[in-house]
Structure formats: structure tokens, C-alpha cells
């Protein structure tokens, strides 16, 4: 394996590990539920994205075949990560009395879906 390829794969793995670490750190550090949601829902996309690109690059350079599984993982991740964050946020709005009363108005005749469906 050429040293340029090796350096590129190494750099991608390090970048990925860094953003995953920061995402997890944000989850532990930020003070409330909604702010905590930001760390894992974003820092992990670039983190895991870098790791997957590194994996593809490694198999393309050092292995004997090109692997497409990483592309699928990326697509599935982009489909599921926002849905997870959305469900967590909805559950939080439903449970937290303080956040529920501080929500901005919809500027529409009906309210927010999570709370309106209670009636």
C-alpha cells in the first residue's frame, strides 16, 4: 500500500474518531435534553461518514475488491438518524411540562401534532 493512501485512510479514521468523541462528549456535557440531542444527531454523521469513506478507500487501495456496503450504511444512517432524533424530541415535548409551555405558537389554527392529538 502506497504511503499516500495509507496517510489518507489514517487521516479519515482520526477525523471520524474525533467527531464521534466530540458528539458523545456533547451528549454528556450539555445541560438539557433538547441541547443534548444536537451532539449525537450531527457529530456522528460526519464521524461515521469519515470512517466509512476510510473503509471504502482501504478496500479499494489495499484489498482486491471495491466494497459497496459502506454506501448502504451511509444511506441507512441518513434515513434513520433524523427519525430517531425526531421521535426523541416528540417524546420529550410530551413529557416535559416546562418545554411544553415554552413552545412558540404554530401561527396556524391547530397546535403542534404531538400535543394536539392528546385531545
Amino acid at each position, binding site marked *: 500500500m502506497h504511503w499516500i493512501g495509507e496517510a489518507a485512510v489514517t487521516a479519515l479514521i482520526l477525523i471520524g474518531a474525533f467527531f464521534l468523541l466530540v458528539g458523545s462528549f*456533547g451528549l454528556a456535557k450539555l445541560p438539557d435534553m433538547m441541547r443534548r440531542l444536537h451532539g449525537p444527531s450531527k457529530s456522528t454523521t460526519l464521524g461515521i461518514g469519515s470512517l466509512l469513506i476510510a473503509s471504502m478507500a482501504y478496500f479499494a487501495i489495499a484489498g482486491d475488491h471495491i466494497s459497496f*456496503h459502506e454506501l448502504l450504511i451511509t444511506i441507512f444512517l441518513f434515513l434513520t*438518524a433524523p427519525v430517531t432524533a425526531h421521535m426523541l424530541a416528540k417524546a420529550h415535548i410530551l413529557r416535559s411540562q416546562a418545554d411544553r409551555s415554552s413552545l412558540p405558537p404554530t401561527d*396556524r389554527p391547530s397546535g403542534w401534532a404531538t400535543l394536539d392529538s392528546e385531545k
Partner: protein
Amino acid sequence: MLLRLFPHPLLSVWIVAVWVLLANEVTFGQLVLGLILGVLIPLATSAYWPGRPRVGAPLMMIEFMLVVLWDIVVSNIQVASLILFRRGDSLQSRFITLPLDLRSPEAITVLAGTITMTPGTVSADVSADGRALLVHCLETDGAEATVAQIKQRYERRLKRIFE
């Protein structure tokens, strides 16, 4: 007749492509198996998805994906620096209301997903009539600026693609 057999043609193509990628090899057997799934799954699930979303403007779709990918990289760096260098209490976090111009449910879903993946914003809820999104910002200068940015960067392009 053809539409009854293929209620979602794009979904069928998509399933075949995903199946071949999952198998990680292009052989005749895998292709046939993928085709069978590509016919059966849309048929079995069509009752839950009666509408047929119109998807157009392929160039706009590529432009949209590039814009989103770029924003994901930028937002990761922004959020990482906020997490590392700011005290959690000092962040100006708040909920904002994003009025929607989009009408198609598929387009609104994509917009909500995009908002979650990009700069310091998470979509938290939708209004009961589907005309406004509730967005939580990690750090914002003003609600109007964030709303204008989301409308300008994503909603305008999604409107071209889906409507």
C-alpha cells in the same frame, strides 16, 4: 395495468439496487431475487402509501444533495466547536416556528430530515395541519435569520424537486 403491478416504480428500482448492493456482487441470481422483491414489496405496502409522489428536476436533486453534504460538514465543525469551547448554559438555544410552503408529505419529510442533519438545528414536531415545523436551534442569533436560511437553502430547492 402496469401501474397496478408497479405502484411505485422508483421504489422498485431502488429495492433492486439496494438488494444488489447488499449482496455485494452482480450475478444473474441476485438480480432475479432483487426483481422479485422489487415487485412484491411495493405491492404489499401500497395500501399504506396510496399517493404517488412526483419527483422531477434530477439536476436540482444533485445540487440539493451537494448543498446538504457541504452543510453537514460545516455544521459538524460548528457544533463540535460549540460543544468544546462554550459552557452549556451560555448557548442561546430556543425553539422556533418554521412556516411551510411545501405541501407534499414526502417533501416535508425530506426537509425535516435535512434540518436535523444540518447547522445546529433539530426538527422536533410538525403542526397538526402539516403547515409548520417546530425546530430547535442549538445557537441562534434570531428566529427570522434561521427561518430565512432554511427556506432559501433547502425549501426552495425541494419545491422545485417535488412540486
